[in-house]
């Protein structure tokens, strides 16, 4: 029997559903998403499943190689470092510290950056000119320099490193938001809303923000990967997290002393940073092309 009730049956996917449909077309993106999920779970549940405390020193097993090595032991799956601390536990804790710090920095940058970007996009004249000049100046200062300055003012520590990286990330959100808002404000549906008597703030929250949210999410995902790399780099340079904290960059710089006899102490933390960043980049890229494909349909 032919379907008479055409209009009721027709399925209209929400924007998120159609994005997901495009996203899962790409197998690599799905693998990346799974890996990322594993890292997120490890970052949240890590302390519950680690066999040892991250700073527990086992003096009878110093510089033990990983379990697959001839001299390795199953008790320490990824070996131990020069103080006899279990690498597996330290890496799980390190993922929590590095990943959590990166997410914190990105959230901070995202909130401030989109606010400033919206203001910069909606204003015009002298105020906009001054704002844009200052923001453009901050955009060109290399992020490591901003971090060095923050550290010089506030001293070292993970929270200061997160603050510095958050500050360094703000311009990229401002830039994206500013251009988007500016472009959107010239469109007809905004003019219609204006004619209806909506104020700029109402237009921003009711009309522009819903359209902008997926752009922000893609940018935020890619910014997390940058933030992870920067936090680890600051930890490595001894400008971020300090020795006692199991941060992945700090672990690499501690492993340097024994790099020749125990290369796994710098290979494994680096590998986990690499995999974390890679999975985030793959997901961000997949999301971006999914959105592009959705828009082009």
């Amino acid at each position, binding site marked *: 029997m032919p379907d008479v009730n055409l209009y009721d049956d027709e399925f209209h996917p929400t924007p998120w559903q159609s994005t997901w449909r495009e996203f899962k077309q790409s197998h690599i993106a799905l693998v990346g998403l799974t890996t990322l999920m594993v890292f997120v779970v490890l970052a949240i549940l890590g302390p519950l499943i680690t066999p040892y405390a991250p700073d527990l020193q086992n003096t009878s097993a110093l510089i033990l190689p990983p379990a697959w090595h001839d001299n390795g032991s199953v008790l320490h799956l990824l070996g131990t470092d020069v103080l006899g601390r279990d690498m597996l536990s330290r890496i799980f804790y390190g993922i929590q510290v590095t990943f959590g710090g990166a997410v914190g920095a990105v959230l901070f940058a995202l909130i401030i950056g989109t606010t400033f970007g919206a203001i910069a996009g909606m204003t015009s004249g002298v105020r906009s000119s001054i704002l844009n000049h200052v923001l453009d*100046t901050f955009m*060109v*200062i290399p992020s*490591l320099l901003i971090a060095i300055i923050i550290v*010089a003012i506030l001293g070292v520590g993970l929270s200061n490193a997160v603050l510095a990286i958050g500050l360094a990330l703000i311009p990229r959100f401002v830039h994206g938001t500013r251009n988007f808002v500016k472009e959107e404000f010239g469109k007809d549906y905004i003019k219609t809303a204006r004619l209806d008597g909506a104020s700029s703030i109402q237009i921003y929250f009711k009309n522009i923000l819903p359209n902008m949210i997926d752009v922000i999410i893609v940018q935020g995902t890619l910014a997390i990967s940058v933030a992870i790399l920067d936090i680890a780099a600051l930890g490595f340079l001894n400008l971020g997290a300090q020795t006692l904290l199991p941060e992945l960059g700090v672990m690499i710089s501690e492993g340097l002393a024994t790099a020749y006899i125990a290369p796994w102490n710098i290979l494994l933390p680096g590998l986990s940073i690499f995999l974390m960043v890679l999975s985030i980049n793959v997901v961000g890229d997949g999301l971006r092309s999914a959105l592009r494909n959705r828009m082009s349909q």
Partner: protein
Amino acid sequence: MLTTLLRYFNLIVITLFILLLISFSLAFFFPGEPYTNLTGNILLEETVGPLAQAFREGNIFQQFWYYAKNLSMGDWGVSFSTALPLYDKIFQTLPATLELTFYAATLSLFIGIPCGMLAGFLHHKKTDYTFMSMSMVMVSFPVFWLALLLILIFSLQLNLLPMSGRLSLLYDIPETSGFVLIDIINSTVPYRYAAFYDAIQHLILPTIAVSFITTAVFLRTTRRAIVDVMATEYIKTAQTRGLPFYVIFSRHVLRNAMLSILPLFAIQISTLVTNVMIVETVFSWPGIGHWLIQAIYERDYPAIRIGMLLVSSIVVFFAMSLECISRLIDPSRGNKQYA
């Protein structure tokens, strides 16, 4: 064209002024006396000079004016740790950084752009996917870890290349320009061929470490630009007219793609400089990044202030010049609303 030049000149001047203002205000944010942070000297009753006078009077506009004046006259203060003038130290370290940045950027351009073009023309083919996944992997490398891996593999395991420094201590090359390769070529010492070979060997690993990530970024940018241009109507028109591929490529694709690539490269400069500074630290390359990170360990505030000012000024200058050039060759790009 003149207005564009003037506008960008104006933009550079304003940005440099803001940077100068930031560097001046840093002296007040850093712990300690602002005068000491600006000059490296302690403000005493008998200290002479207009800047010291301005600080005794407490007039902040005069302080800023004389600070800017001192900077322009080459009086950049002295370092806390060595008590030597910062001006000399900066011009010792800066060429090393510029040298490394230049080689790394050149290498990335010569590998990244052709590969990106190839990937762009073979859009959604196997080559394209290979290049894209390779660049995705390359972008994800933490630069310090990559540098350490290179040292572990090529210096410690294979014993092929030196792991730190610019030149072996065996060679004594008189420093004239500060760029080690130029210095060696210009010098008259009998062992200069051996020294040149040694300098090249020292350069290989840091250059690879820096350009690894930049190459991947350039590859992705170029590919995107080519794909966008290839999808346009005028390319299809050119193809229907039966123009041979090399004509379409050189006349339409290359020029239009370059227009969108150039401003994106301008944004990359600051990332490039950050990577250079980290790699310098790992390889003990005697450049400005290595020096600045040492300065932060020693809480050498005058050095941090001047280093920040100089490095960001150079980045601003290059980034804005690139943008200006891209505007000059493409006047159709939308005018910047401000500036």
